[in-house]
């Protein structure tokens, strides 16, 4: 039988995966609204390092083009998507923790 600690670890791990899916959808939505071409949008994703740092993780083959979209170049104005995502992501994460993680965690801990 799994211990309470195991259950909490599993809950947090599952929540981490769900959060990355949510954030990936979110950055793709912003990129779409910023007018990015579809092939670049679908190659944007949000990942997490082993020490739980969340980062924007585009397809490396497209890095240069994505930087041009984000910052503009001599021929095109900037269509920022990554920076707006970074500014807004904390609110999304906060809401996710509040609605999706905290209730389950409180149940698991026996508070609710």
């Amino acid at each position, binding site marked *: 039988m799994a211990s309470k600690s195991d259950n909490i670890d599993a809950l947090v791990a599952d929540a981490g995966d769900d959060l990355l899916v949510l954030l990936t959808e979110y950055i793709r939505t912003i990129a779409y609204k910023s007018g990015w071409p579809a092939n670049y949008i679908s190659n944007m994703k949000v990942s997490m390092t082993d020490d739980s740092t969340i980062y924007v993780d585009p397809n490396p083959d497209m890095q240069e083009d994505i*930087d041009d979209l984000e*910052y*503009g*170049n*001599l021929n095109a104005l*900037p269509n*920022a998507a990554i920076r*707006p995502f970074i*500014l*807004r992501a904390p609110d999304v994460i906060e809401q996710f923790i509040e609605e999706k993680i905290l209730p389950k965690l409180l149940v698991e801990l026996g508070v609710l």
Partner: protein
Amino acid sequence: MGNPFIIAEDLALKTLVQGMTVKDDNNQNRPVKVWFGYPDVEIRTQDFPFVTIDLIDIVPANDRQTSGILVDTDNRGTQAPVAGYSYEYRIPVAYDLVYQVSSYCRHPRHDRAIMFQLMNKFPSKFGYLIVPNELGTENSSRTMFLDGFVKRDAVDGETGNRRLLRNVLSVRVISEMTPAQADNAIKNVEYVHINNTTSSIPSGYHPVH
């Protein structure tokens, strides 16, 4: 009269950035022009170095939003004060305005000189932007953050195989929009015209008398 939300910050930022100069063998006092967005190709070919300012995002600043009613005598600097008269209004809506400030030049020495000057104008989290109120009677000092710096040099393709030295700064300016500005953006309904022609009324409906 001064300028309202966003336009005031745009102009204040341009005022802050413009006035830079760089040196080289041909010109000891070469001005660095400042543009909103990109200048036309012909202009930018002739006028390196230059700086561009782009508003790239407007973010609701929920973390510093409060609510309530304020009272003053000049409606937050938008109306000339009249003795014995005061204004009452809701607390403004907090926003962060996010700008991209980009510098473009061909000469490495220009690049470093511009970089130095920009870093002095945007000193990390210690920057501030002086923004006049709409009456032009007072200024506010807005906290301004340098959120990011990226080197985006290029040597081929877009530059016609000439080197292009480019710096990109992401700058966040705190701001707020008064409810009055939001209200002014909505047109009031002044007339309601009722069509009293009684033809073409769908079955089941009756004309208004």
